[in-house]
């Protein structure tokens, strides 16, 4: 039976059409995955259902909840209905809660609003609601404020509010996009449980096909405000008809073709790039580049013994062996320690120290692509700032071409900055909006200290813009005139202009849609082959790291818990944390395999006890 349906919904904002004849339906107790890239209109469809559309929005068509048309309801009727019959979970848990009110008060408000009950009663119910989402008042008192909770815990509070009154429909708009993979797995599990317990319908909006494959009973794909394809999840993934769905799937599992030599990468001498040959080191890289096939052994439950190691005749390379590898590494971290002053417990004691980076060692060799994986707060960005000599380490040393930063003169530092460039996550935030693209891209050229004249400068700007797939004429545009993917290309061009040996990429594709992400990954792979670049690729996204790196380091709570050739680490993780990360990260092929194996209607095995992110 259909619980919620949208029929021929047209929506325009100030006359600009946003949704064109959108139709979809969610059955009772069913999970519908609504998939699409940014701007496809999936969030607008949800807001139309809630009648919380932005100013100037005009909706035509029908939105039926349990047989009643929501579009014909008055604002007062909608207020009575929102929160009671439809619950909503949003993307950004960090900002979705009022910072000035306790979590207890915010959850209790749902009951007070719709049941008109007394305060004490509402508070008691709020405690129960929070208990249901894994925040028992014994450990998370109701008088906690949102800033005292982590992102995952805050999302639990939002979910508690959404399910508080046992609504008929829950709309979840990218509920886990802003969360770490292990937290994401817990939140998805929680939502699945709650929906199954109450028989609630769930409209799950996401850009992530792997999440859909894990969660949804049926799938609807949107693009440019229109529904392009829909069907049951199994049928959808086995026989996609629409080319856009196929493109989306290809992009989600995209592995850039890396023109990688089986011999070790090109190695420099005294800062010059020169070819060199040797053995070892790069051998594992040859394995990379082949798409990871669904490995049946990875479906084994967690805690099972390691799958047999395949394609490896050597023992796990020890750090000492790697140090003996050929060529001078561009950048080496030796037991780097970064500490922050923590809170002062008492006026008379020294403030406690918080170790953000704890004795981390790593090396990046010319032409090599190294991944640094970890969840938010694990210290990976702090480590990156230290590697760029933006902050000094409190212990250990960072060596650039064999010399420690500590001994550097200003000129040495300039030379280092020419050779080590950086690309950040948010392309828009890292550009001054009042500067033109040409000037932005040319920014690092000041490191060349007037070695090149204006003509050469312009030649270089044109060259790097062409390198990243933009046109030289784009130099006259402002950042806001570029799309998100193009801005990330600009950021890469800016890093390329000093002709560096190493680029540190800090979550370079996390903010991008899957199809754009695939293009940027391809570009990075091409540039690496063309210019013999080394990458230090920092990300929380295991799929991306697997696709583009030769070696990977897994970081947790400031320490490297595992490192090794990417293919080996992913195929046979040795550390429990790596296994946990791999198991938690949504994986399309694994989700589909699991779906094929489990009998219809049965939920996935209940996993971990939620610890609250």
């Amino acid at each position, binding site marked *: 039976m259909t619980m919620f349906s949208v029929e021929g919904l047209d929506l325009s904002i100030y006359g600009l059409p946003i949704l064109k004849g959108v139709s979809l339906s969610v059955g009772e107790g069913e999970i519908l995955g609504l998939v699409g890239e940014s701007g496809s209109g999936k969030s607008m469809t949800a807001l139309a259902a809630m009648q919380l559309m932005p100013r100037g929005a005009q909706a035509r068509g029908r939105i039926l909840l349990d047989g009643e048309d929501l579009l014909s309801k008055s604002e007062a009727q909608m207020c009575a209905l929102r929160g009671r019959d439809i619950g909503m979970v949003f993307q950004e848990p960090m900002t*979705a809660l009022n*910072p*000035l009110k306790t979590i207890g008060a915010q959850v209790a*408000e749902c009951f007070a609003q719709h049941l008109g009950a007394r305060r004490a009663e509402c508070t008691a119910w709020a405690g129960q609601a929070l208990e249901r989402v894994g925040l028992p008042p014994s450990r998370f008192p109701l008088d906690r404020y949102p800033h005292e909770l982590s992102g995952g815990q805050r999302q639990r509070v939002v979910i508690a509010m959404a399910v508080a009154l046992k609504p008929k429909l829950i709309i979840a708009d990218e509920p886990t996009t802003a969360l770490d993979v292990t937290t994401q797995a817990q939140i998805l599990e929680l939502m699945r449980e709650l929906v199954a317990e109450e028989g609630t319908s769930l409209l799950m909006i996401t850009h992530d096909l792997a999440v859909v494959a894990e969660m949804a009973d049926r799938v609807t794909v949107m693009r440019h405000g229109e529904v392009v394809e829909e069907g049951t999840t199994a049928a959808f993934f086995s026989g996609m008809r629409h080319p856009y769905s196929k493109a989306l799937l290809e992009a989600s599992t995209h592995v850039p073709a890396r023109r990688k030599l089986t011999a070790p990468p090109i190695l420099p001498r005294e800062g010059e790039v020169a070819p060199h040959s040797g053995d070892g080191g790069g051998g594992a890289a040859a394995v990379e580049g082949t798409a990871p096939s669904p490995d049946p052994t990875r479906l084994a439950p967690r805690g099972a013994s390691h799958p047999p190691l395949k394609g490896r005749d050597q023992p796990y390379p020890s750090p000492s062996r790697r140090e003996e590898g050929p060529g001078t590494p561009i950048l080496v971290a030796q037991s780097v320690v970064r500490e922050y002053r923590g809170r002062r417990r008492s006026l008379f004691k020294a403030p406690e120290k918080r170790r953000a980076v704890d004795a981390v060692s790593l090396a990046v060799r010319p032409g090599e692509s190294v991944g640094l994986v970890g969840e938010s707060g694990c210290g990976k960005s702090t480590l990156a700032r230290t590697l760029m000599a933006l902050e000094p380490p409190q212990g250990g040393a960072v060596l650039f071409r064999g010399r420690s930063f500590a001994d550097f003169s200003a000129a040495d530092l300039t030379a280092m900055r020419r050779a080590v460039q950086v690309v950040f996550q948010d392309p828009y935030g890292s550009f001054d909006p009042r500067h033109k693209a040409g000037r932005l891209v040319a920014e690092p050229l000041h490191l060349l200290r007037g070695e090149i004249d204006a003509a050469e400068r312009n030649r270089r700007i044109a060259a790097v813009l062409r390198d990243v797939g933009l046109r030289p004429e784009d130099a006259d545009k402002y950042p806001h005139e570029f799309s998100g993917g193009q801005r990330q290309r600009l950021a890469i061009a800016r890093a390329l202009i000093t002709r560096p040996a190493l680029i540190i990429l800090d979550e370079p594709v996390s903010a991008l849609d899957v199809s754009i992400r695939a293009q940027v990954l391809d570009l990075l792979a091409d540039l690496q082959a063309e210019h013999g670049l080394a990458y230090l690729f920092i990300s929380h996204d295991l799929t991306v790291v697997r696709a583009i790196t030769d070696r990977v380091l897994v970081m947790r709570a400031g320490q490297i818990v595992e490192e090794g050739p990417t293919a080996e680490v992913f195929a046979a993780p040795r550390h429990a944390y790596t296994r946990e990360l791999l198991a938690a990260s949504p994986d399309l092929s694994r989700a589909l395999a699991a779906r094929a194996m489990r009998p219809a209607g049965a939920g996935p095995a209940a996993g971990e006890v939620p610890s609250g992110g």
Partner: protein
Amino acid sequence: MLVYLAKRLASLAATLVIASVVIFAVMEVLPGDPAEIMLGTNARPDTLAALRADFGLDRPAPERYAAWVAGFVQGDLGRSYTYSVPVGELVAQRLWVSLPLAAISLLLTVLIAVPVGALAAARRNGPADVGIMAATQVGIAVPNFWFAMLLVFVFAVSLRLLPAGGFPGWGAGLWPAGRSLILPAVALALPQASILARVMRSSLIDALGEDYVRTARAKGLSRSEVVRRHALRNALIPVLTIMGLQFSFLLAGTIIIENVFFLPGLGRLVFQAITQRDLIVVKSIVMLLVASVVIVNFLVEVAYAAVDPRLRRRA
């Protein structure tokens, strides 16, 4: 919380010390000898010297600074050169005019600005908003003494509802004394309220665009319930900041307004003291004004902590 307050108190004390040094130094540099002003230009040098010795003006500057600060802390503000009465007495009398005046204006400012700004934000781009924005623009552009004259013309001269000036003293009763403060307070408050209303409006508009407002709407709260229960308190934080800054403008405003309305307050006292080179009075009043501004800003900081739990720390 205690650490937070202790830090604020320490910076408050430091501000006062620095302010006292600056005030003292400026008074030293200013031309004009109090003794000469009091005795006239024809006074005999030995009389002048005697008078200087009497006031302690012949001692070195650091010593006089120390004596001034020590006296100030103990409540002894010295003797006025012109009135020959203790400055403390002089100030205390005047304080009972200026303090109520400033307090009433501040209260009026908040009472006008918060609802008006909130209304404008809630009716964004509607006729009420456009009207309020136009009115506050005028309120900011027009100086307070011109308002004062306008108010006197309308309420005192034409309608004869309120006195045009003067102050009967609190001895005359609460209402006779209080009503003579109404027009000055309104004249002082209007420009400040105009500024604060605009801050309130933009702050509330920002708050209404936040994600938690959308969450609250999804819970079933109506637009006005969201404003009252969620957005308003969040919007007050920037308003508090501006309010703290406005207090010093309010004090500066009293100097002009008290002269317009012939009110025997601190503002008029300091104005007269400057023209008569009564430096000890000027020094002490300026120091008092600085202290009151610093204290008000401290109270604002305390209010932040009361409003925003993120500034409080769990013990």
